[in-house]
């Protein structure tokens, strides 16, 4: 039998790779390169000037204002990751272990809520969080003074909105992970003498880590780019990166600045994910390799 030599000119190889390569090139690589190129230009009289210098980068690195917003974005994203995982895990666990009979119906309801337009849902939260909204009305009903909580147009409101829109991702990834755990492993742990709690920490939790991690990464990436919630519920008082970038492009018509801030955000996101990947992979490696 002749062993086929795979070369770059092999038509089958080219044919099978081209579609994906084209999509990646036109919708990922080229936009990224264009964005990067843009950061080395400047704006003069609201027009782009092809100056090829570091004016924009000097500005970014000299103004702490930008970095405050970047820091706020990353910390909001990280808080959102932690809280959404804390919310999602028990829900997914209940769905996978306790509510098996109704799990399909519950999942359909969750998916309906998930598929409802995010703008609509986010504006819906205004009705709840407003000073004269549902939440304060309920609190007043149970005896609190009127307008106990002034949540609307605060970072807390932003966080509530983000959690509402994003927690469903880890809920499903964790649910899928939990469903894949062989019931016998849980029984084996009981059989070896472990309590329910011990079994959870020794078996269930470690084996649901893939879902936990992928859910966390999804929430992190999506909350870094959160745009709607800070604008609608945060009221623009403590903007996040996406709002800053929007302003640079639209209000200030400073495309090079917007492009540079975009690159900064992408780099911060990529570095955080790389650090996360590095630590989880290294921990695996010290535990003995392929598991």
């Amino acid at each position: 039998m002749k062993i086929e030599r795979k070369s770059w000119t092999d038509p089958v190889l080219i044919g099978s790779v081209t579609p994906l390569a084209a999509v990646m090139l036109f919708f990922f690589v080229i936009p990224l390169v264009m964005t990067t190129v843009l950061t080395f230009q400047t704006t003069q009289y609201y027009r782009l000037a092809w100056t090829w210098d570091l004016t924009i980068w000097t500005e970014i690195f000299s103004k702490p204002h930008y970095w405050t917003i970047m820091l706020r974005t990353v910390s909001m994203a990280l808080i959102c990751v932690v809280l959404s995982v804390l919310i999602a895990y028990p829900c997914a666990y209940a769905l996978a272990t306790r509510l098996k009979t109704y799990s399909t119906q519950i999942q359909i309801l969750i998916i309906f809520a998930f598929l409802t337009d995010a703008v609509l849902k986010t504006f819906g939260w205004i009705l709840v969080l407003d000073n004269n909204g549902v939440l304060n009305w309920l609190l007043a009903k149970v005896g609190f003074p009127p307008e106990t909580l002034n949540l609307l147009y605060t970072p807390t409101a932003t966080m509530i909105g983000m959690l509402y829109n994003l927690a469903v991702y880890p809920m499903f990834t964790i649910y899928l992970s939990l469903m894949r755990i062989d019931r016998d492993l849980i029984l084996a742990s009981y059989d070896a003498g472990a309590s329910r709690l011990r079994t959870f920490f020794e078996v269930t939790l470690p084996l649901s880590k893939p879902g936990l991690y992928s859910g966390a990464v999804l929430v992190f990436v999506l909350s870094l780019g959160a745009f709607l919630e800070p604008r609608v519920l945060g009221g623009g008082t403590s903007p996040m990166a996406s709002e800053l970038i929007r302003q640079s492009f639209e209000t200030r018509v400073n495309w090079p600045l917007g492009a540079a801030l975009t690159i900064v955000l992408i780099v911060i996101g990529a570095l955080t994910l790389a650090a996360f990947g590095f630590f989880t992979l290294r921990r695996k490696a010290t535990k003995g390799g392929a598991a």
Partner: protein
Amino acid sequence: MPTPIIDAVDIVKDYGANRALHGVSLQVGAGEFVALVGPSGCGKTTLLKILAGFEDPTDGGLKIQGKDMRGVPAAARPTRMVFQKLALFPHKSVADNIGFPLKLQKVDAPTVKERVRAMLDLMHLKPEYLDRFPAQLSGGEQQRVALARALVSQPSVLLLDEPMSALDAKLKKSLQAELKKLHREIGTSFVLVTHDLEEAMMLADRICVMRGGNVVQIGTPTDIYYRPANMFVAGFIGETNFLPVDVARKGDAATVSSPLVEGQPTDMPADHISPDLTDKGPALLVRPETIRFVTGDPEPGLWVLNGMVDEFFIKGSSTQYRIRVSGLDAPLVMDLPGSIVLPAEVGQAVRVAFDPSRAFLLSE
């Protein structure tokens, strides 16, 4: 039997409207190897799960080491289970898997290490496997790790749920031999669930044959093979022949005759009659190795059947013939010692004979 380790009395288990166990009783002695055998759905696995504490019986009593097990969770029972799919923790190393039960008992780390090493030696596993993960081991090695994990905390009963069903035939044979040796060495009581009666006969001291949530027969392998309670138990062992007969009973004695054969009515020896004999479809259990071809007049006392060779299989040490006999639903199976010259060809009319007094009288 001295005080049994396991004493299960009239265990009933319902799953909704389905009754999986109809009042099963089973005693397992100290150091005994008992096999639960039956076709799928016979309740053997359910019974094992009840012993392990994964399922609660709907009714009936269960004592292990004299203690009532009602409401005692699996974690607190002196039993350990080897699962059908082994259920090794994929995220724990071999050492952590084996040491897990000890870690839960708060045994100090050096002792755990020492005992895990000792288990590794007992199971003929190499010490360098300690840091590997289950997925990096072969099927047979995983099997040994699962056994080691189950035995490391020295349980008084080891429960085995068809642990060898996924292995290839050759590996299975060698592990079966090891399991029997291991049982002899450590003296723990073993309860093995299997659908393979041959495996049960090889390994167990006593076999409990189950069907439809009931115990059909409990006995030694010899009992089960030579004195099966009924056709179900006898048919479970492997290929065999049932010849329908007419029975005339006088007290414990029985005289059998059959219109299908040439031969005299025969008195069956008392120990060749099943104690569970009923009027329902009495038959003679005729083992394939007890049937021979005959030419001319047979010796007196033998029963002769006329038939035609349907098919034959050369198995090396033996040759199997299937003889179609008019009046019998299934062809008669006979095993002859292997020989270079074939005694009969397909389609040939033949006469075969056996000694009815050496057969075994039973019913459906």
